[in-house]
């Protein structure tokens, strides 16, 4: 079994991993940059090592510094968390060569799945559906026309050589094919010096469905059901849930089986996620492999809530060579769980990231609510890292009940001193399309775009009375929430032995 684990991350995920270490009797080693010396994850770990200045490239992204820290502290394993170096094959390889257990798949698997083309080829060979498309050898107008017909309308014609929307044309009508091919070719040639075109099926209203998979060293691979993450803003997931309201039982079974096939084809070990695009609805819905994430996901708690599995604990057991800590095929998906990501950003001002001190921060407590936070009252939110502050996960018997519970929890999560996206999250949860479970990945850029605008910002009439009393109270008028009295609600204090 792993004895001492270096946690190569920060924030809420570092705390999540440290908590799992406590339960397994594994010693935890935190690392921190100069900006994080007072961060909660540093206080929570058994040991903590400074690894450099605030910019991540000199600290959390520095492979030599992390390996030095592991060596100096006598760690025998490394957990990369998510983000930073978690999907960096060079880091996994360096750990392997240094004799450290990397809590994740082998470096070769990370490298293969990190290449979109290699991953797609592998999945096609394994029989996992991919978005139909190819670069035809015959690049004449006729050749491309035939390829468009073979792939089937609607299609996306795009530059084979590059991305960024240049040389990209949507074709929905057969009459547009000729003009679109020529325009795309001209743009591609101008932008990339190469007019070669790729033809791909256009999924018009895709939903993002992903399947949690898990493999051990004994050849066992299982899935832990799906998550739906269609509420996204600029490809950033904001709200995730399990089960997906979009899947019929038959499609749910097929997508899970395809994910296991995909993981098996990749010779996958430890926790991973197969992401799919879902096109259409009901039993006729089609799904296509998008990519594989070779790490723990931000949204893993919704899977934990519906399956009862502690995924991080399972990661540490499997990395230590133990078999999957459940019997294959024995899991059930119970109830419904929804996660909302709380970001330090101001939706009313173009989602501008916020930095500053949390003057007041009180976590909600109610049955069926879990909060994974990387900050506490008095924490300084810096400009250096991802602005995610916390995740709030609500689970209940039904989706409707989970929505109500999550809304109630977010209303009871006061964060003062910086703006957060909580009011925006509440507006999404209240939107009829979210409540009906019909949101696709374009929702927040289309129907839901107006939700970013702060509604009525007139304070309710009763607010002034509370403020007047606050001004008269001993701490009022000065900074409240950072004094000794604030610890009455301090979540770190109530963690007891787990927190320190």
């Amino acid at each position, binding site marked *: 079994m792993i004895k001492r684990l270096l946690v190569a991350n920060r924030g809420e995920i570092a705390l999540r991993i440290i908590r799992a270490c406590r339960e397994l009797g594994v010693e935890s080693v935190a690392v921190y940059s100069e900006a994080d010396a007072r961060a909660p994850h540093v206080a929570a770990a058994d040991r903590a090592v400074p690894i450099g200045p605030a910019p991540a490239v000199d600290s959390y992204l520095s492979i030599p510094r992390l390996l030095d820290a592991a060596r100096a502290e006598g760690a025998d394993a490394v957990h990369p968390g998510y983000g930073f170096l978690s999907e960096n094959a060079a880091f996994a390889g360096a750990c392997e060569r240094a004799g450290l257990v990397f809590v994740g798949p082998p470096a070769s698997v990370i490298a293969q799945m990190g290449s979109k083309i290699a991953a797609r080829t592998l999945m096609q060979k394994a029989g996992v559906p991919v978005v139909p498309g190819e670069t035809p050898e015959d690049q004449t107008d006729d050749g491309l026309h035939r390829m468009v017909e073979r792939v089937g309308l609607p299609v996306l014609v795009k530059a084979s050589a590059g991305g960024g929307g240049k040389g990209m044309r949507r074709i929905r009508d057969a009459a547009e094919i000729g003009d679109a091919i020529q325009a795309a070719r001209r743009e591609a040639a101008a932008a990339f010096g190469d007019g070669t075109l790729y033809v791909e099926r256009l999924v018009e209203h895709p939903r993002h469905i992903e399947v949690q998979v898990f493999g051990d060293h004994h050849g066992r691979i299982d899935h832990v059901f799906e998550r739906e993450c269609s509420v996204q803003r600029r490809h950033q997931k904001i709200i995730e849930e399990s089960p997906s309201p979009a899947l019929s039982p038959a499609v749910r079974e097929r997508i899970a089986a395809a994910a296991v096939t995909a993981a098996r084809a990749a010779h996958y070990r430890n926790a991973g996620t197969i992401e799919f695009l879902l096109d259409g609805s009901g039993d006729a819905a089609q799904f296509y492999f998008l990519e594989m994430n070779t790490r723990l996901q931000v949204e893993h708690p919704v899977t934990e809530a519906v399956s009862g599995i502690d995924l991080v604990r399972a990661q540490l057991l499997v990395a230590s060579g133990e078999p999957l800590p459940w019997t294959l095929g024995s899991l059930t998906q119970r109830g419904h769980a929804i996660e909302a990501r709380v970001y330090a950003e101001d939706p009313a001002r173009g989602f501008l990231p916020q930095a500053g001190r949390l003057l007041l921060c009180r976590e909600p407590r109610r049955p069926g609510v879990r909060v994974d936070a990387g900050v506490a009252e008095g924490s300084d939110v810096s400009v250096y890292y991802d602005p995610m502050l916390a995740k709030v996960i609500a689970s209940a018997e039904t989706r409707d009940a989970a929505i109500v519970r999550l809304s109630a929890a*977010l209303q009871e999560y*006061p964060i003062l001193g910086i703006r957060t996206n909580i009011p925006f999250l509440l507006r999404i949860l209240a939107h009829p399309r979210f409540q009906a479970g019909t949101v696709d990945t374009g929702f927040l850029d289309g129907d839901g775009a107006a939700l970013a605008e702060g509604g009525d910002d007139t304070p309710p009439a009763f607010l002034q*009375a509370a403020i007047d009393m606050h001004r008269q109270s001993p701490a009022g*008028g000065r*900074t409240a929430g950072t004094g000794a*009295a604030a610890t009455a609600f301090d979540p770190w204090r109530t963690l007891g032995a787990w927190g320190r």
Partner: protein
Amino acid sequence: MAEPLRVTRVGDGVYHVEHDGRSHIVYIAGSSGDLWAWTDGRVFRGDFGEAGDPPRRAARAIGPQALTAPMPATVVKVLVKAGDAVKKGDTVLLLEAMKMELAIRAPGDATVRAVYCREGELVQPETTLIDLQ
């Protein structure tokens, strides 16, 4: 016209308000001229006047021609120098914070009087970066 209203302090910065037969929890923090308040998932910031005055938003006392950083950020590019004429909406500075680029634009037609920051410098909110006249 005032509804019966009862306020009870229940903790540091936490108040229970009964109003119109409903109760609310209000959380308050900040300093006197810049208070933050939270209730029912809504957040308000301002100086909230003197007792009894209608609430109003805090007006930041920056000169109309002083451009400031909205948050701690790194100066990526300075696009003007003293003496340059700028038009309303012209980008004069590029800042970067949390991996996002942020353009600072001229609020009106003006002449650059002085530039107080350098490329690569870490700047704090509210500090003047460029003076226009």
